[in-house]
Every structure is written in structure tokens, then in C-alpha cells.
């Protein structure tokens, strides 16, 4: 116990390794992927080979004889920052279970973890495989209690009906986890999670969204029309239906650990823009540039650096708490509320420092600006994070 900002040596090793990967493998793909709105399949296969499809399934450090201290969350945030620094959209094309993993890990039975995660994603064939989580609906974003998708029991089966939107990788996922209401009278607690497998009749992919940024990340809508799944697709099995069974809130607690990672990705994008515009300014602007203008640019760069450093402090604080089993719901939300906005300011600042070269597609800063905006929206908007933070300080005052 002592205040110390030096990351574990294993973390430093991972950071260096992932940074080199991001610089050599992700960054060079960024512009073309953005223009085409996707990555070539060979590239995705190469990424699958590289990470072995299982990047975020299980904590691996103990198994692999790594450090005894729990540093999984720190590992995740440091890796996420570096990968997003390389390219955030390409990062989301790295095959793996994605957000299906935390929900299945939180609510699934051992058989379900094996069947829907290990059996699919620990496969060493190198074929790219994706997982997805679908919560958002056209009429329900932050207000999850307004989810309209239903699951009705029919003997040993469930019949699901509803529409989900803005789902990353749904169109190519092996498994999609969805929440659906089994008992409307119970509100959010009446929502349960189901696993829908690719090709299930009634599971229909709709349009692929065209977005402001992160264009190479595939965002899909889909409908469930009398989509039948067996009881073993209900996460937690029949036990989930009992009054104390795994409910929506409990499962979403799993996201206390994903929020700092998303904040870390935002930080990585902001840092990319800061570093790029800083290097540009010092190489392109002659020392003779008028003093006031030069000072203004230096001040802006300083602000960017200061705010990004604080974003990293908040992300690391939340991850460190998670690794040390200290409840971190407030701190996870702090990192997610702060980092995307600091990074957005950095991206706008970078464009403004570079002027016409900032908005030009010859450089990546305009792309990073388009990419960063959604980080203040997905995985809980900045506003929802502030609801979480203020409730943890003030208690629930609004009912």
C-alpha cells in the first residue's frame, strides 16, 4: 500500500507489444477502411490469427502462469488505449465475442459459457468469429425499461418478437445476446437475456447503418419474428425465472468493467489526434510564426495533453479498483463521462491547429473527430454516466 503510478512490468510489456501491433497493423489500414466502410476479409482473418479469436473471453493470466496479482482490468484498459490509438474502427473488427462475453459470463450457466463462448471462440482454426449484444431498440436507448422485445414461453421453448438497432457485428455474429421482457409487470427485472444463434429462423438482419464515423465497424439492425429458441438459450436457465434469478440489473453490473475500457479507447483516439497535431505543428509551423499565434497553439496542445492525462488517471483508477475488488461503479462512470469529452476536445483542437490540413482527408484527424463522437453516446451516454455518479453521491432523490 503506497501511492504509486508505475504500471506492473507485465502491463508495460503488453503496452509496448500492443502499441507496435497497432502502429504496424492497424494505423496503415485506417483510411481505406474508413472509405470502404469495411475491412477486406483477408485482413480480418489475419487479425483473427493474431489474437486467436478469444481476446476477451476469459481472464488468462493465472492459467498462463502470469503475474499473481489480478491485473486483468488494467491490462484491458492499457491494451484498449493502444489499439484505439492505432485505429478504433479496425479495432472493432478484431474477431471475438465482443460484448456477448461479459453478459454470458455474468448470467450464463457453466454449460452456456462452454457452449456459447469457449466452444465457439476458443476454436483455433483461425476463422474469424464474432459475438454481439443487442439491447437498444428504436424507441428505447438509455431508457432500457422501455424495451418492447418480448419472450413468451411455449413449453420448453421461447418465442421472441421485437426489433433491435445499432448492434455492432450483429450481421456476422455466431451468437447475439438479446434482452427481452418475459413479465411486463416486473419492469426491468422482468427482462431476461437470451442467446440467439446465427441462422435461427425468424432472426432477420435489416440494414447496415451509415454513420458519421467508425464507418468500418459494422452496425446493424435486426428483427425477431416468432423466433424460437429452446430453454437452454435463456441465460441462467430456468433458475433465471425465479424471483431472485439473474435480472437485467445484475447482468449489466458486468459492464462496470467494460466502461473503463470504452473510456480507454476514447483516450486512445484523443491521444492519436493530440500527438499528430503536435508533431505537425512543430514541424510545419516555422519558429517565425507570430508569437501570439504560436502561444495560442501551444496553449491548446497543453490543454489537450493535460486533459488526456487526467482521462488516463480516471480510467486507471476505475480499472485498478476493479482488479482490487473495490466497488467502482461511480469511478467507472467518471472515466466514461470524462474521457470521451476530453478526447473530443482534443480531436476538434487538432483540426483547428492544422487548419485546412485538419479538415482534409489527407490526414486522419478529421476521421478521428468523426470516430470519437460516438464514445460519448454508446455504452451509456455521458448523461447516463452522470446519473450514475450523482446517485452514488446524493442517493436516489427523484422518486
Amino acid at each position, binding site marked *: *500500500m*503506497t*501511492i*504509486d*503510478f*508505475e*504500471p*506492473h*512490468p507485465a*502491463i508495460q510489456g503488453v503496452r509496448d507489444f500492443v502499441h507496435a501491433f497497432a502502429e504496424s497493423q492497424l494505423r496503415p489500414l485506417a483510411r481505406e477502411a474508413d472509405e470502404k466502410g469495411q475491412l477486406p476479409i483477408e485482413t480480418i482473418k489475419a487479425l483473427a490469427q493474431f489474437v486467436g479469436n478469444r481476446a476477451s473471453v476469459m481472464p488468462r493470466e493465472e492459467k498462463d502462469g502470469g503475474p499473481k*496479482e489480478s*491485473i486483468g482490468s*488494467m491490462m484491458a484498459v492499457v491494451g484498449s488505449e493502444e489499439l484505439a490509438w492505432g485505429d478504433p474502427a479496425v479495432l472493432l473488427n478484431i474477431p471475438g465475442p465482443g460484448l456477448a462475453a461479459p453478459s454470458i459470463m455474468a448470467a450464463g450457466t457453466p454449460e452456456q459459457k462452454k457452449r456459447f463462448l469457449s466452444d465457439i471462440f476458443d476454436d483455433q482454426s483461425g476463422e474469424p468469429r464474432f459475438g454481439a449484444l443487442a439491447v437498444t431498440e428504436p424507441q428505447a436507448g438509455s431508457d432500457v425499461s422501455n424495451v418492447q422485445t418480448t419472450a413468451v414461453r411455449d413449453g420448453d421453448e421461447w418465442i421472441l418478437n421485437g426489433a433491435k438497432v445499432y448492434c455492432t457485428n450483429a450481421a456476422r455474429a455466431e451468437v447475439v445476446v438479446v434482452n427481452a421482457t418475459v413479465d411486463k409487470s416486473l419492469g426491468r427485472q422482468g427482462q431476461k437475456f437470451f442467446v440467439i444463434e446465427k441462422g435461427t429462423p425468424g432472426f432477420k438482419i435489416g440494414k447496415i447503418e451509415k454513420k458519421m464515423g467508425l464507418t468500418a465497424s459494422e452496425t446493424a439492425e435486426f428483427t425477431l419474428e416468432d423466433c424460437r429458441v429452446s430453454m437452454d438459450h435463456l441465460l441462467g436457465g430456468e433458475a433465471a425465472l425465479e424471483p431472485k434469478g439473474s435480472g437485467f440489473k445484475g447482468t449489466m453490473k458486468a459492464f462496470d468493467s467494460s466502461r473503463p475500457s470504452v473510456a480507454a479507447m476514447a483516450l486512445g483516439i484523443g491521444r492519436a489526434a493530440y500527438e499528430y497535431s*503536435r508533431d505537425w505543428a*512543430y514541424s510545419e509551423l516555422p519558429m517565425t510564426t507570430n508569437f501570439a499565434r504560436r*502561444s495560442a497553439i*501551444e*496553449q*491548446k*496542445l*497543453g*490543454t489537450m*495533453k*493535460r*486533459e488526456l*492525462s*487526467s482521462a488516463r*488517471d*480516471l480510467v*486507471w*483508477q476505475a480499472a*485498478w479498483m476493479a482488479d482490487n475488488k473495490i466497488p467502482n461503479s*461511480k*469511478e467507472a462512470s*467518471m472515466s466514461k*463521462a*470524462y474521457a470521451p469529452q476530453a478526447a473530443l476536445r482534443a480531436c476538434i483542437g487538432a483540426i483547428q491547429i492544422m487548419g485546412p490540413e485538419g479538415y482534409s482527408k489527407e490526414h486522419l484527424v478529421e476521421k478521428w473527430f468523426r470516430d470519437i463522437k460516438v464514445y460519448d453516446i454508446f455504452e451509456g451516454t455521458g*448523461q447516463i*454516466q*452522470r*446519473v450514475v*455518479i*450523482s*446517485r452514488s*453521491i*446524493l*442517493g436516489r*432523490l*427523484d422518486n
Partner: protein
Amino acid sequence: LPFDLQPTDEQRVLRETLHDFAAEVLRPAARDCESARQTSEDIFRQAHEIGVTAPVDESYGGAGLFDAVTHCLVAEELAWGDPGIAYYLIGSGAAAAVLGLAGTDAQKTKHLAAFGDSDPIKTFIAVGEKVAAGDLESLETRIDGDKVSGTKYGVLNAPDAALGVVVGLADGELAAVLVDPSSEIEIVKPEDKLGLEAAPTSVVAFDLAAEAIPSGPELTTAILRTRLLTGALAVGSARASLEYASQYAIDREAFGKPIGAFQGISFKIADMAIEVDAARLAVWRAAWKLDRGQATLSDVAEANGQALSAAVRCGDDGVQILGGHGYIRDHPVEKWFRDAVTLSVFDAPEAVGDMMVARGVHA
């Protein structure tokens, strides 16, 4: 050791002691000391007895050295009680840190014991000038051998200090001298200021022969440490505003609900909480670097920029959340806001600080 944000057991005990002291002694005395424009002798003595105002090694008769991280924890906790009194207590003893870190053996032997006396000396560190404060590279005070000349602002204790450190540049390098304030310093005027009134400061002109403290990395680290304490005080001030406004948001009702139920208020509270954590972490990060001898002016500017802007924002939001009650002196939030803005000038206002961050990184 890997990344860790848990203070040591010793630090935790110290924090608890200081928190009680701040709550029971400093808070109730804040308005009186403000009106008197002087922290009372009694409070100065009580703080001295706790042993946290001047870090002096036991071998020189002190209560023990402590590192920059601990120094920042102390400053935050005292400032939570009252930023003005805290500025006085921390500022009166900080010269001990400079002497202890950078002084010659002879200087330590000669001066340090007086910090540990039962009737301890009061001192100052004169850094700020009309234009530059935290921007140390722009100081206009010149040090040439044992000669120092320059005019300093915000000099604490000028009329009754027993010892002072004056910081300036010698051939472009950071330098400092020890002065005997009873000799030839010219107090141009006492400062009648916006906030931090419990810490009496003056404008002082120095043009005299003095004793040089050896320049070098130790001196730079020592001076940067005293600069960072301003940021640590700012964290305490910001936290005081956050906590006071939070309680008010729970207690005060409007339109039939606690005002904290409205997002116009609760989101401000959330943002203040983020600012406080970010500021504290930034200060700790810089302090940790200082203790390893790795901190630069840019690191300290970064931490102070984050902490001072947090204090000013939280000061503003604290008053705003209390509304009309925030503006009157029955509540402390208007004072903390004035203190925060004043504090921000004692180091580098945000814009200047951020320029220093960028220059440090590039250089």
C-alpha cells in the same frame, strides 16, 4: 511496485487526524481569521504540534521529514477545512522543504532547528511576480552570486518572517537565495486581496546581498514541490465545495422535491466529483514523480492546471447550487470560490500553465 492508489497506513492515520483538526478547528475559525486578515497564533501552534507544517528531519530537531505525496495529502486536508488558513500554515513552513532538499549542511544546521522549536519561525518563499508566478522560466528576479534583485508579489509573512527564500534566475537557470527579512527588504505594500485573507501577503522589493542555495536538480525539485502544494490546496478547496453543495442539494427543496433530483443540479454535482478526482490524481501523479526526482516544470504545470481549474469550477458551481444562499456569507461557498480564484493566480492561471505543459513536452 505496481500501480496503486492506496495511501500507506501512516498516511491514512495522518489524514484522519488532519480531517478532524480541519473540521473542528479550521472550519469554525475560518471567518474570524478572514476578518482579522491573519491566522491566529493558536491555530499556527496547534498545526505545528501535529507536525505537518514544516518537514524537518529529526536529526535537525524536527518532527520528521515527509515526502511530496504526503505533503500534498496534508495540504488537501487542511484546505478542505479552510483554504486561507491552510495556505498560511503550509506556506509558513514550506521553506523547510527547500532547505532540507537543497540546502548545504551548514545551512541546514543553521536554520532547520528553528522550524522545530516550540515557538517555530515563520518563513516565506517568494516566487510570484507581477507577470510570472508558476511560469518559472519567465521570472525577472535576477540572482548573481550572493546578490538578488527583483520585486515579488504574494510574499507571505513579510513583516514578521524570520527567514525567506527568494527564487529567481541566474544566467537563465533556476536559482534561489536565503534572505534575512529583518535586514533590508522593502515592503512595497501589504496586499489587500480577493481571497485567502487569513494568509497575509505583501509586495516586496529585494535588492540585497544574500546567501545562495546551491543550484541543481535538488533545488529545482524543491521549488517544484512548493509550487505543487498550491495545486494540492486547490484539491481540498474543490472537495469542500463539492461536499457542501451535495448536502445542500439533498436538503433544499424546490417544486416539491430535493433540488438534487433535478438534473440541472445533479449533473453539476457529477461534474464536480469528476473534477475533484481528476485533480487529486493529477497532483498525486506529479508528487509521485517529484519523490522519484523525475518531475519537470511541465509535470507540475499539468497537475496545477487540472487542480486550479477544478477549484475554480467547483467554487463557481458550489455558489450556483446554493443560489442566493451561496452568495451570502452565512455559507462558506462564496469564500471558497474567492479563495480558489486567488489561489489560481498564486501559481499559473490555466492558459499560462497549459503553455508550459506544451513547451515542457516539446523541449
